């Protein structure tokens, strides 16, 4: 059951990810990206990381991608014209892709040689309490540094917007 669900949603994620690149219209690409986020959330859920799954949907699919779609709609971006691929891209595209996938498979095999399949319900540390505890004890410094980074980004956005207004 776990394996079937994993395969179904992994395939949906990959197909949607390919669709993001293949589609010519930005809105279609954005909607496909939402599909990727959604299937990733299901994969997190299968691993037992329920908080991460919910956060993935709320933050990425529900907020960031809505903003993307909003901006695309606001700018009224049209479909892009398909250009012919350059000679080098045609020649090297597929071999490079295969080489990259092979490299990735090799590293995963080297890093985690004896991993067994994860079963649904096997991992218990994905709840809200566990994540909160980890964030405010073990990972306090990275968490706070990230917060400050985001704060700086917000301030930067306001400074840029004000400059535009004056």
């Amino acid at each position: 059951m776990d394996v079937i669900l994993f395969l179904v949603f992994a395939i949906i994620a990959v197909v949607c990810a390919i669709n993001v690149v293949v589609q010519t219209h930005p809105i279609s690409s954005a909607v496909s990206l939402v599909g990727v986020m959604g299937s990733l959330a299901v994969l997190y859920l299968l691993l037992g990381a329920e908080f991460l799954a919910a956060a993935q949907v709320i933050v990425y699919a529900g907020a960031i991608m809505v903003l993307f779609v909003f901006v695309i709609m606001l700018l009224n971006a049209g479909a892009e014209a398909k250009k012919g691929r350059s000679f080098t891209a045609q020649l090297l595209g597929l071999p490079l892709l295969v080489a990259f996938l092979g490299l990735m498979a090799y590293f995963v095999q080297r890093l985690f040689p004896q991993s067994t399949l994860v079963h649904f319900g096997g991992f218990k540390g994905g709840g809200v309490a566990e994540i909160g505890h980890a964030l405010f004890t073990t990972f306090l410094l990275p968490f706070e540094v990230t917060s400050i980074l985001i704060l700086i980004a917000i301030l930067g956005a306001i400074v840029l917007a004000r400059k535009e207004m004056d």
Partner: protein
Amino acid sequence: MDSFIVISLIKTAVVFAVLLTTLAYLQWVERKVIAHIQVRPGPYRVGWHGLLQPVADIIKLLTKEDLVPPYVNKPLYLLAPFLAMTMALLSIAVIPFGPQIQVAGYQTFMQLTDLNIGVLFVLAVSSMGVYGIALAGWSSNNKYSLLGGLRSSAQMISYELPMSLAIAAPLLISNTLSLRGLVEKQAGGIWNWNVLHGPFPQIVGFIIFLIAAFAETNRIPFDLPEAENELVAGYHTEYSSMKFASFFMSEYANMITVSCMATLLFLGGWVAPWPAQYGSSYVPAVIFALAGLVALYHGFHPARRRDGYTLPFFGVLFLIAAAVFLLPMVQSWLIPLFWFCAKTGGILFGFIWIRGTLPRFRYDQLMGFAWKFLFPVAMLNLLVTGFLVALRS
């Protein structure tokens, strides 16, 4: 295991039948209430007091020609109503309506499923619902639809922030994200409900949540996405037949969901306002009996001749309902259900009442209100609550 599946299927069927009927009749209630606010009778012709009007509307919508206009982006145009509808109906799966009950020897909860992250699930599903509206507006290839979709996505992103912050404060007090756990923490009486319970009564949070809920469901005074005097019908201008109906139904389903969430988070869910040993379990019976007696009295002193037949009939009906609430074998689940429906219904009535009385916001007022007033107040509410909860523990 098998009985679990069978019970789950039965529960799903019952919940969805009730939900869809409520959706159809909520619209009748809304038309009736607004009509009476505006001193007119409202739907009156189809059935007794227009009671069959929803059925007539469903038949009309089903048999209308399903038109797909040319020049629309067809995949997204077809996806949008489906998305809006699915996301609107999905949240009901985690809403608990009552405590654990026993049906034919099986212990089961009056809830389809209890998630550890129930609150987050509802937030996630409702945040996905905006795609239905935004994509409908964009794919219709119509400037009014596009403006409606744009307004709606901006509005929903903005109001999601104060709403989430308002939700976070009662979660801090109750220390759980499971919707059933939230209600169990508020058991005992009205002084234990999050809206009044210390360390910091969530009365401000409750009001912020309600305001944001109006905006999230695109209801008056925040119904700019479908402002008819500016945008024809907004994002669903180009939709007809059942596709239009699914947008319509999703709006009402979202209303029911946010009312249920307000009840669960702030008003103690199915918990009675005071404990059963002080007689709270007789309240529904007394209310129905009083209604029955009033109807009987007016039936025997009829203002019009036909009232002499109809009012005694309804009086007897109400008295039977009152008697049902006194039966010990159904009391265990009927009385929690009564309180849950009463609270949710009260909030739904508030939605309709406000629609009947308030004008629409201007767009800049809407945005300014969310970012300059509602968001800071919700933040302050969360900070004070968090501080007091930390002090207590």
